[in-house]
């Protein structure tokens, strides 16, 4: 069975500071990894995904994530955040066998302060 752990439930940060949102997964097979963002009162929107190839993945809004197989991690980073990045961020995993749905982490609320 696969699972996802987001280590921080809330991350407060000042505007223009860098940020890292942590995600670790467990799966015994090859995985596909995703980061989604949810702005207040909206559904989820895909930020970026890792399927194969380069371990550094670039997404929308200046976010990037690095797949680390040995650490089973997929941390999300942004070098300089804006107030508009305030949202909840979800990491998700899907293995290449078995269950077709994504397994989501519990979410990290990013609060960008002026």
């Amino acid at each position, binding site marked *: 069975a696969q699972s996802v752990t987001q280590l921080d439930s809330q991350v407060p940060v000042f505007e223009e500071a860098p940020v890292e949102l942590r995600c670790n997964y467990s799966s015994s097979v090859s995985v596909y990894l995703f980061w989604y963002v949810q702005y207040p009162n*909206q559904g989820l929107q*895909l930020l970026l995904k890792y399927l194969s190839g380069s371990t550094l993945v670039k997404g929308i809004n200046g976010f990037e994530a690095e797949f680390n197989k040995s650490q089973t991690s997929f941390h999300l980073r942004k070098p300089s955040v804006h107030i508009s990045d305030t949202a909840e961020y979800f990491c998700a995993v*899907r293995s290449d066998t078995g269950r077709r749905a994504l397994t989501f982490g519990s979410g990290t609320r990013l609060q960008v302060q002026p």
Partner: protein
Amino acid sequence: DVKVTQSSRYLVKRTGEKVFLECVQDMDHENMFWYRQDPGLGLRLIYFSYDVKMKEKGDIPEGYSVSREKKERFSLILESASTNQTSMYLCASRDLSSSYEQYFGPGTRLTVT
């Protein structure tokens, strides 16, 4: 752009009522999903459908059923609503040819009193 719509943004129902949540996607996607979102628990899969009239239970199917009579529409049914089903419900769809990416609707916030 893929569009996934849900019939209501906010819904208030009484305990014991039968509740229907509707989801429609306009991109001819084969797979559709219903999730429940609760604070600190992330998204949990209730049911998914991999094709018309085909469904599989997710992690928390108890108290729910689903219906998929047409490819574009996936309904979640609460047979007898209870207060512990107060939550945000999110529908998603996925094209089999895409890279497992799911497209989400805006969500329905259901309150059961």
